[in-house]
């Protein structure tokens, strides 16, 4: 027992060091302006998704209105930024603290009315509060800027040590620093009495009461702290884009953070980090390639919910367990069997979707695929795509039992230990 903590401590320090190194090195590897703005967005969403998982994964609260705290933090920060322009003595570096304060205040206010119960009640109240705040934002144009939003200019005051936040790379390092601090802080929170009792309340609120804890107080505090971190994310987004609109606190932002968190995996602390980075990449990369990106998004979410409800993190965790037991090689051949059917199925499906979008889009009834032109007014390309999808699905169903069997054997032998 007594020897364990230092070792654990060293491993954790190593992990934090690695995270810091990655954050520092990333823009050196992907320095182009497009990649840089993508990294900035990803960092902001990492904080936002982790703050969301304080509710969903750690406390068992499904919120449909988390953008409220993000958005309020963003508006508070952009107003503070404009005050700095008029002499408020606060460096831009620390402006996300205004977002934190506003997010915390909103969390204290709304948490009080919404945390009496978990489950459906909480979800419905969060949805109502989200709509309420979103519509209120249009009623107070002085605060929320109406349709056009509130804009600002982050290059204010004197540059300190040459840092003016004019160049995007400086903005990146500001976001990276805040992301690092927030990740460490939110992880630390999971290792405190409140963090653990949040898990207990998630698992069994009744039993938590009978060991002396008021579940409502636990939920309330977690929501308020989650609002604080969401507010920081919002504040960084305000500085990054130099404009905040009512969309920031609307239902779509609430939806995307739920999606990121869930896809990444709510059961692991790092799950939302994966989800936020991946979805941000997909969002920006896919949107540049196809008009149907939202459709694919929905499809992706659906597939994850149905077949990997633990998210990407739990898939990684499953494979890591096999890796640790030295049994990972046993399941890989089975993956080779389902690979081609998967490609065929999704290839056919994507073909159908793309053709449908092309048709709906306008007059051009031809589509260029791999250098040849397809005439969408004839039945042939449609039938071919349909056939590919159907055949892929049939083959997938036929070959999937191999994967299941390989996993069963690998797990059995891993649990049986050495052979």
């Amino acid at each position, binding site marked *: *027992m007594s020897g364990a*903590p230092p070792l*654990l401590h060293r491993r954790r320090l190593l992990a934090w060091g690695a995270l810091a190194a990655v954050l520092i090195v990333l823009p050196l590897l992907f320095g182009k302006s497009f990649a840089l703005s993508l990294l900035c967005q990803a960092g902001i969403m990492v904080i936002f998704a982790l703050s969301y998982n304080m509710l969903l994964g750690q406390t068992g609260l499904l919120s449909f209105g988390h953008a409220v705290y993000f958005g309020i933090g963003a508006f508070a920060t952009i107003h503070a930024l404009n005050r700095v322009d008029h002499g408020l003595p606060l460096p831009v570096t620390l402006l996300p603290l205004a977002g934190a304060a506003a997010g915390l205040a909103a969390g204290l206010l709304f948490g009080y009315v919404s945390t009496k119960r978990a489950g459906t009640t909480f979800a419905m109240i969060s949805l109502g509060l989200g709509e309420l705040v979103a519509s209120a934002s249009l009623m107070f144009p002085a605060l929320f800027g109406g349709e056009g939003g509130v804009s600002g200019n982050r290059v204010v005051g004197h540059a300190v040590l040459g840092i003016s936040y004019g160049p995007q790379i400086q903005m990146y390092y500001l976001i990276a620093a805040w992301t690092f601090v927030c990740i460490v802080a939110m992880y*630390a*929170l999971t*290792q*405190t*009495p*409140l*963090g*653990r*009792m949040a*898990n*207990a309340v*998630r*698992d*069994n609120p*009744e*039993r*938590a*009461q*009978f*060991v*002396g*804890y*008021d579940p409502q*107080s*636990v939920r309330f*505090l977690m929501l308020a*702290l989650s609002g604080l971190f969401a507010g920081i994310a919002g504040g960084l987004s305000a500085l990054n884009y130099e404009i905040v609109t009512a969309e920031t606190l609307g239902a779509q932002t609430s939806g995307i953070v739920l999606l990121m968190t869930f896809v990444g995996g709510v059961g692991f602390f790092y799950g939302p980090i994966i989800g936020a980075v991946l979805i941000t990449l997909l969002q920006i990369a896919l949107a540049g390639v196809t008009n149907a990106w939202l459709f694919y998004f929905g499809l992706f979410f659906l597939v994850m919910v149905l077949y990997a409800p633990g998210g990407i993190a739990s898939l990684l965790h499953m494979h890591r367990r096999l890796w640790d037991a030295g049994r990972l090689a046993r399941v890989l051949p089975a993956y080779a069997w389902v690979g081609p059917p998967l490609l065929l199925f999704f290839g056919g499906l994507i073909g159908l979707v793309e053709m449908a979008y092309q048709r709906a889009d306008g007059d051009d009834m031809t589509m260029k695929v791999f250098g040849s032109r397809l005439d969408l007014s004839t039945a042939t390309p449609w039938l071919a795509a349909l056939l590919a999808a159907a055949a892929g699905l049939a083959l997938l169903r036929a070959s999937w039992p191999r994967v299941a069997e390989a996993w069963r054997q690998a797990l059995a032998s891993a649990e049986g230990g050495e052979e």
Partner: protein
Amino acid sequence: MGVPALQLTDVRKRFGQTAIINGVNLEVAAGERHAIIGPNGAGKSSLFHLISARFPVTSGSILLKGESVTGLSPHQINRRGLSRSFQVTNIFHNLSVFENVRCAVLWSLGYRYSFWQRLAGLTDANLQARRVLGEIGLEHRGDTVAGILSYAEQRALEIGITIAGGADVILLDEPTAGMSNSETADAVALIRRVTEGKTLLMVEHDMSVVFDLADRISVLVYGEIISTGTPEQIRADRAVQEAYLGTGFSAAEIDRA
């Protein structure tokens, strides 16, 4: 003999038109082991729910160590030193066994809703949780997820969570329900050990357990206590025998115990 640990005066509970608990008077002395027996549906578990405030009472008063706890919530009553277990295992399924017990000691050691202290650094909480794990015989299962424990182990954990916070009034709701004979013997030894010097109120169906553990016994029938006394008195009580005979339990079963 001092202030009773628990004192119920004319406690009643109705669900709509149905009276579940019909004017119960009960006094449990500090340090006493008291069992409540009675046929199925007599309201034993309901009485526990009233004492622990899982349900509010319709009328009547409940004093814990001389102070009224009527109308308080479960967590407030727990903080005043009353802890209970459940008939259907009620644990934190996704947490490890160790975390289950540690969650149960945090409040009593004053850590409240702290989000500025590291759990790993709370030496007293960790030691106490380890000690309780040892007492309930689960020290080797500390890292196991509680949800996959065997039934008997989950029952032991249920008792562990109940006693971990150091409450001096313990309510156990059918702690040996569903156990084999040898498991029951272990459970009785465990209960005897962990409630040493504390007040115990228990509901139990197994008569051998009741007559083995209890200093005094109360018999609850149709929401009323028809008799309270030492095991010898209860065994000899005609009204008790009739109540049991009338509901299918045999007097022989009581005698055998």
